[in-house]
């Protein structure tokens, strides 16, 4: 754990902290239908044009059910579009490599994967997808699913902030404004930066190179419109790689600087949303307390993962491999151990899922961190929007538990928390846990589940547990040795993605509706303080206890037992 790593970590957190307020203020303007920005002269007419063609009255608002219906209808249309485009890509233009139609179960899995902001990939991008499929069928969801996630978070925050309101905003207005004023400018600027670092952006067929050592060996080099897609896959915490190796591919992530800003771009919007929360509920210190809890969990994960990877694999050291710099299997030289561990923690704290190293080849404890990050609900900054609404579920559970402890009716920011609210929170949390554990159990006890394993023993179990955690959590990263491109996995993982996205969003919107209806009461001396260190400790504790109670037994069968086998036995699998 060298000094460069420590400096970079401090710099990362400092920059994130510095960007949180400006990002939050910008989000506050974007999520206010009347908000004024310096981009209005350009985008205001476009925005109005969108509403007119869509037949939407931007002045009207929706109750939570209508808001949810709009979101579900919009997601359905986008998912069907992707399925159709993938099935037909061999007949469509912009296909210089003559990629064939995507098989039905893979197209189904992929359409759901991108619609749900998961970007799980049962395929290798550069060997499966045409340029049109990349740009349109896939990248459209990098924008739309990100905007939809932020919209849900905004609806929940409005529900908390408002008093005696029937409505929580207008989904269409949120959607259009987030696209135009937030995602487009950020993605454009970031793409240009990425091209300057070496990320490709062209429409040429793959290049055939005669290699230097032996000119008879032809290397076919991937090409395509990559930078535009990479920028939004990070900013929108989608994570679906243009190529199979994702952000480890030298074209997707060519330099340590592109790597640093890709890591920053993952947390940028989620971190800004904590400031947006504080401003919207007029309790800025609460926003910072949530940010603080996220940062504590983030740093804990980074340090464990980094430490484990620096420590490396003693079995390899015994085989004659130098023990410094640590575990390099599945890592790139330009990033080294620290930047790989940092990226792995960030991408799984958020629901991004892009990877710059192969989590499957991490040491057991190094690989436990990304898996646990996902299982905790991706509330550590989390996916765009999804991180905040997931965290607010835990905030309400924390307030409820604290209320039970002192024997008072729990109250959050002047709103009474009642049994209905707790029920929807618990449904949201439990459904995910149930989905992950049940599908994992089914997989390890069925021949279809075991057929896809690349590793035997506890690591094989980890591959399966990680796959269902990742898809249910809408993360999309993988212990990628698992051969998931089979009808059984494509179907069960797709179901997990739907459950993880929509069986979470609908309860969240129900909570938003319930909170909006409540009357705001002035804070009293008996109100539970939600901005002091005690609150941060309770919140972190609640998240860890729920996560640990749910997943400790499963983790014991995977990475934990594997760790002890690594250091105490000579077993191999």
């Amino acid at each position, binding site marked *: 754990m060298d000094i460069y790593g420590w400096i970079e970590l401090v710099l990362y957190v400092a920059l994130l902290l510095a960007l949180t307020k400006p990002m939050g203020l910008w989000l506050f303007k974007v999520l206010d239908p009347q908000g004024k920005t310096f981009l209005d002269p350009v985008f205001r007419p476009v925005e109005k044009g969108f509403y007119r063609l869509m037949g939407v009255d931007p002045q009207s608002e929706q109750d939570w059910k209508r808001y949810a219906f709009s979101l579900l209808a919009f997601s359905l249309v986008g998912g069907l579009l992707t399925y159709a485009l993938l099935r037909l890509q061999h007949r469509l233009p912009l296909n210089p490599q003559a990629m064939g139609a995507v098989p039905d179960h893979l197209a189904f899995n992929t359409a759901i994967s991108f619609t749900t902001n998961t970007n799980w990939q049962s395929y290798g991008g*550069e060997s499966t997808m045409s340029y049109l499929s990349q740009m349109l069928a896939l990248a459209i969801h990098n924008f739309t699913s990100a905007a939809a996630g932020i919209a849900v978070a905004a609806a929940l925050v409005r529900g908390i902030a408002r008093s005696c309101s029937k409505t929580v905003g207008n989904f269409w207005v949120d959607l259009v404004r987030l696209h135009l004023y937030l995602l487009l400018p950020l993605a454009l600027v970031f793409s240009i930066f990425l091209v300057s670092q070496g990320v490709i952006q062209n429409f040429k067929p793959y290049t055939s190179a005669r290699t*230097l050592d032996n000119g008879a060996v032809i290397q076919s080099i991937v090409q395509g419109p990559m930078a*535009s897609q990479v920028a939004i896959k990070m900013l929108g915490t989608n994570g679906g790689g243009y190529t199979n*190796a994702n952000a*480890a591919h030298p074209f997707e992530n060519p330099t340590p600087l592109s790597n640093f800003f890709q890591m920053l771009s993952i947390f940028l919007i989620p971190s800004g949303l904590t400031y947006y929360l504080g401003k919207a509920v007029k309790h800025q210190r609460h926003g910072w307390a949530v940010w603080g809890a996220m940062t504590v969990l983030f740093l804990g994960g980074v340090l464990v993962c980094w430490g484990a990877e620096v420590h490396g694999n003693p*079995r*390899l050291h015994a085989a004659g491999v130098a023990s410094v710099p640590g575990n390099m299997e*599945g890592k790139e030289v330009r990033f080294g151990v620290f930047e790989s561990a940092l990226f792995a923690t960030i991408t799984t704290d958020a629901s991004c899922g892009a990877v710059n190293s192969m989590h499957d080849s991490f040491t057991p404890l190094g690989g436990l961190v990304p898996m646990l990050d996902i299982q905790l609900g991706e509330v550590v900054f989390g996916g765009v929007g999804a991180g905040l609404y997931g965290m607010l579920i835990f905030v309400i559970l924390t307030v409820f538990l604290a209320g039970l402890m002192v024997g008072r009716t729990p109250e959050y920011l002047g709103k009474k928390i009642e049994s209905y609210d707790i029920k929807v929170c618990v449904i949201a949390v439990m459904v995910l846990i149930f989905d992950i554990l049940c599908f994992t159990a089914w997989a390890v006890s069925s021949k279809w589940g075991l057929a896809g394993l690349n590793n035997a023993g506890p690591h094989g179990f980890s591959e399966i547990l990680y796959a269902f955690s990742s898809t249910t959590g809408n993360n999309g990263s993988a212990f990628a040795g698992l051969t998931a491109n089979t009808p059984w996995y494509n179907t069960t993982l797709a179901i997990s993605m739907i459950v993880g996205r929509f069986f979470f969003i609908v309860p969240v919107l129900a909570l938003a509706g319930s909170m909006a209806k409540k009357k705001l009461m002035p804070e009293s001396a008996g109100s539970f303080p939600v901005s002091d260190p005690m609150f941060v400790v309770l919140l972190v504790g609640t998240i860890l206890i729920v996560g640990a109670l749910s997943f400790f037994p499963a983790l014991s069968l995977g990475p934990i037992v594997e760790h002890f086998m690594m250091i105490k036995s000579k077993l191999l699998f």
Partner: protein
Amino acid sequence: MNELLSEFRASIVSTVLIAIVFCGAYPLAVYGIGRAFPAKADGSLVILGDNVVGSALIGQPFSGAGYFHPRPSAAGRGYDAANSSGSYYGPLSKKLIDDVTARVADYRRENGLDDGTPVPADAVTSSASGLDPHISPENAHRQAMRVATARGLTPEAVQAKIDTNTEGRQLGLFGQPRVNVLLLNLALDGKR
């Protein structure tokens, strides 16, 4: 019912409009502005005469004794730049340990190292992408004697080439010191 239909109208129209702006205009704009960096936007290709010999960002296979060797690659049958991939072997995988043990023996034999000498980790492990263009400076240093012998150069001359082709940390902080294998080998051939 009409109200619900209007939601589907909004869904379909918004999807079409977003497709036009975000999947058409936006990537084209990035393409257009990206022409300010044509070499980079087209893949940092290395061109000798009429031939593309590779990309400065993409590793390629080298096995001749007079060339520096890249890391082991799990992309396709090795350095397949249309099939990026890691090995996905877990830490207790028998295949991983067997592969690495064999590579350690080969590396020591090729480079005249004693049995006890630790081998640089990057020299015997697969990268994440299978296309890693870099090796560590230690790895290059360990190969210098072999390359010098094969080319009839002094080890100092080869080490000097390594040093001029070693990239430091970006901005003095980010990433790891590293040597680009293709560019170093081109320099040895006097083609760069």
